[in-house]
Structure formats: structure tokens, C-alpha cells
């Protein structure tokens, strides 16, 4: 009889442990999900920033700005001094 009570106690304790472990795992999973979402948000932002950087750094745009705003031009061949190593 005593042994039975002991077994019952153990089984109850084990059941509680299972419930607790399950609860913990769900909490942790929720945490993982939250962090993954955060990561995803950063990835979205990174992608957008890359796109933005690309748009700003587009060759045609840089060339246009260099020519019009900064008044730059390709040097003619006679204006180049070659330095030989």
C-alpha cells in the first residue's frame, strides 16, 4: 500500500514535470518566433537598404551628377600624365 502511494506520488510529480516542460518549450518557442520575426524585420530592412543604396549609386545617376553638378569630364589623352612604376 505504501509502495502504491509512493508510485502515485511519483507519477503525479512526473505528470507535473511533463506539463511544466511542455509549458517551458512553448514559451521558448514563442520566444524563438518573436526573435525570428525581429530578424526577419531586419532582413527586410537590409534588403530595402541594399535596394536604396543601389538606386542612389546607379551608374547613370552618378555619371549625370558628375557631369552636370560637379562639372567633371573625362580627361583627354593629352591631359593625362602616365606614371611608370
Amino acid at each position, binding site marked *: 500500500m505504501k509502495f502504491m502511494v509512493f508510485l502515485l506520488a511519483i507519477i503525479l510529480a512526473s505528470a507535473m514535470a511533463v506539463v511544466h516542460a511542455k509549458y517551458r*518549450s*512553448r514559451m521558448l*518557442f*514563442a520566444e*524563438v*518566433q518573436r526573435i525570428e520575426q525581429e530578424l*526577419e524585420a531586419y*532582413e*527586410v530592412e537590409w*534588403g*530595402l537598404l*541594399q*535596394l536604396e543604396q*543601389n*538606386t542612389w549609386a*546607379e*551608374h*547613370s545617376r552618378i555619371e549625370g551628377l558628375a557631369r552636370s553638378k560637379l562639372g567633371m569630364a573625362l580627361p583627354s*589623352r*593629352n*591631359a*593625362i*600624365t*602616365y*606614371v*611608370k*612604376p
Partner: protein
Amino acid sequence: MIITHARTVDEVEFAARWRFLLLLLMGAMLMLVMRAAYLQVIDNQFLQKQGDLRHVGVMPVPAHRGRVVDRNGELLAISSPVKSVWGNPKEFEASPHEIAALANMLGMPAGEIKKRLIDEHRGFSYLKRRISPEIADQVLALGIPGIYADREYRRYYPVGEVTSHIVGFTNIDDQGQEGIELAYNDMLKGVSGARRIMRDGKHRVIEDVASVSLPVPGKDISLTIDQRMQYLAYRELKKAVISHRAKSGSLVLLDAKNGDVLAMVNQPSFNPNANFSANGGFTRNRAITDVFEPGSTIKPFGVACAMELGQIRPETVIDTSPGQMHVGPNMVKDVHNYGVLDVSRILQKSSNVGMTKIALNLPSRKFWAFYNNLGFGQALDTGFPGEAHGHLPDYQSLRSFTQATLSFGYGLSSSTLQLARAYLTLANDGVMPMVGLVRREGDKAPEMHRIMSAATANSVRTILESVVSREGTALKASVPGFRVAGKTGTVKKTGARGYEESVYMSLFAGMAPASDPRLVMVVMIDEPTAGEYYGGAVAAPVFSSVMEGALRMINVAPDQAMPGPVVTASK
């Protein structure tokens, strides 16, 4: 109550009936208990499963598609998350006011929403796919039942039509349809993951239970393209195609040392970000998929073959008068009667008669094998979809006239890229590297094949330098400061009735700097109709301007005598 009532009415007569009924009810009760016990204890899996089916589900998690970048890591294609808004018509309930707000946010007519969500009897209907996540969040914030949003990816091509033929495009389900997107779809797409979720009675997701498998993002693809050169080539080719009112055009720029494709552009082009029609050939990467007869641009190889077999030397003299000759029943003609020419003048003047006389002295089997080794009629093995092999006639059918036409570029066909690959051998001292569009792992050296001796390649290159001169046909291909070697081609196109009278293709194939070539380029402009049509007038100027810029980009020192001051650095 009923019992007492029954007894008072007629005790004896109904006692048996009563007991029978009781027994029946008891039996039914027992069966129910047993069935319940059976379901709960013995066959407990069944109910568990049915319950799970109703509220536990697995949702796919889309994987991030890999990026496509150029050799310097510049973005050519990138996936950005977007949301697709969909509705469940069975759950959808909204006031006209809410529908109007929804229509306003999604930018679609309210009638369309009603049609999709109220008149529809399915459980799923897309409202709008691929909208920005912010708008989707606003839509969800309206709190209309039966409206959901899923995460998807949309492909962006930051450089648009400049690189669209190479990179290709994907369809709405993110699967590659053309170009690199198609060829490397398996590497780019990754593997979608899955997560287990719980739903409530209304099928709303209430909890993420566990991750079944994590999505594996696709790999990035790094191309050999240099976006700066690509842009330059695109701009110059487009300008030329427009000003010469040509039908189409292609340009290929290769790294002479390792066969990397540095730029490959075509006209007409298309913008892969916008809605475009796949009809009309705008999406075709003509430089790889379209073949043509290479005409005079092939003459250097006929000369190289004869030199390789020891038949001629650059100073060998051949009489081309009277500017035409019979080969069997056929006639080969020159534009003028050039008289007596040495081999380098034959290429300079592009004499068909001279080439025919050289070619007819060559053993046909060896002559054929030489062309075959140069890759004419052979796959490029770039893995690009729709790659053309071109055509080289079988050597058994090589009659003398066919052999003559092969020497001046008719009777065989080649794509722009194949022609450029053949020119690699002249640029690279007789060795041909494999051409490639995707960077090799660890940038290891490509496969190399020796096609001709270094001496032959060098002397042909020297001859080709004289073509880009005042005496030759391609003065306009010259680049200030650099020695340029190349060959023009003006090819008559074939129509329904054989070769057309005045429909041409203008070609230029060349390399620079000629002392130690770093770049090889082929320019092809199809059907220029603005008057000029000679390769030296239409294609050569494009070569010149692109080559000038490209040489500057890779910092090649001029190899021509320098007019400006030269300073020697001292440490």
C-alpha cells in the same frame, strides 16, 4: 410520475412491456458506455487524430531566394518580402463602409472585392498579391473577419533592363523563367520550411506549436559580369541601334585571359520589374541564342589555319585579280579588283578571292577540324537556357565551294558569344579558355585548350592590327592610346529567296591592347537601315567607345607610343 401513473391505470397488463423497455434502454446505455470506453481507452488514436485535423495544421514557411550579384558584389537581383492579401469568402463579413476602405487601401474597385469575396463560394480567394508589408498591416488592422495576409517574396532587379537578358526573371510563384534565374533556379530557390500551428474554431491561427523544419535560404549566385562595363556596353549599343535604326544588336565583352563574360548586352531589351510581354523577342538573350553567318569576321581563322599548316606566311603574295573567280559552277567576288596582295593585305582589304585561294590549298579534313576546334557548331556549355550551337557543315560534305565559303564566313553559323570565344584564341596566344557566366568557385583557372601555336596567333594578331588603321576597314575601331586588333564583317542576310540584296548585318570582332590583349569584344548590329551598313562604320565605333571605357576601368596602361609626358616613379 409516469410510473405511478402507469401502475394506477393497469398494473398487470403493462408490467412485461415496462420491463422490456427498461432492458432495452439499459442495453443501449451499456453500448454507449462501452463505445465510449473503447474510444477513450483502446482506440484513443482515432479521436486524437480527428481533433488534431481540426485545429492543428502545418504551414509552409517560404525560403528566401538567393541574390544574384555581379563580380564586384553589386546587386542584380534581390528578393524582398511582401505580403499577399487573401480572403475567405465563407467568413467574410463587412459593411459597405469597410469594403470601401479596403478597396481604397488595395487600390482596386470595391466591385471587384465584392465579386471575389461575396459571390465566390470557395474558401480562398486572392485579393491582391505582392503588396508592401506596411499596406498589408494596415489592411489587417481594419479587423475585417475573413481577411488574411501571407508572406511572400518579390524579386527586384535594381539595374533593370541593363542586365535583364542575363539575369532573366521569375514568375509570380518565384520560380525562374529565363536566364540565370532559370538555369540556377535550384540553387537560388532554397527549401521552404514548415511550422506546426494551432487554430481555433474559426480557423484563425492562435498558437505556433513547433517548428517542423527551418527554411533553408537559397544560395547567392555571383556572375562574371562587371556591372560598370555592362552599363557602358548597354548605353553604347542602344545608342548605335537607335541611330542606325537597326532591328537588333548584341555585344559581348570577354576577359581574354580566362574567358569570363564581363558584359553581354542586347537590343531590344526589357524591364524585368515592370509588366512586360514575353512575345516579340524582347526577352531573348540574342548574344547566346541567335546565330548568324559570321562573314568576314571569320577570315582571320582561315589565315591562321593556313599558317598553322605551314602553307602561307604573312608576306606570302597572292594574285586576286580580276577580283572574281570560279569555284566549280559558282563565282566568288570581291568588291574591287585588288590585284596582287600579300596575306596581311588580304585581311586588311577583306578579299574573298584571296581567302578562297588560300582555303582551296588546304586539306579539307584539317581545315574542318580547325574550325571545329574553334568551337563553331559546338556547345558553349555556359548552362544558359536556349544556348545555340550554331552550325558547321559535316566535313564529308565539304566540297571545294563549301570550303571556299567557310573561309570567308558563309555556310556556317555562330552566335555572338561563339564568335567571341573563337577570338579568344587569337588574343590568348592560341589557347582557348572555357567561357563562363558564373564565377567559378575559388576563382580557379578555367579549362584551357590549345587551338593553334602562339606564333600563329601572334602573327594573325599583328595582321589584324593593320586592319584597324587608315589602310584597313576598321579605322573607327581604334582606341586612343591603345593598339587594337580586329576584323570587320558586313554580312548579307538570307531571306526567303536566298541572300537578300540590301539587308545586312554589321559586325566587328576585336581585342585590345594588341601587345598583350586583356579584352575581347564582338559587336553585332542587325539590319541597320539608316544608310550606313559596313561593319567598319556601324559596329566598329561601338567597339571603340566601349573598349576605351572598359580598358580604363580595369586600369590597363596604354601600349601605344605616348604623346603626353611620361613620368617614371622613383621610390
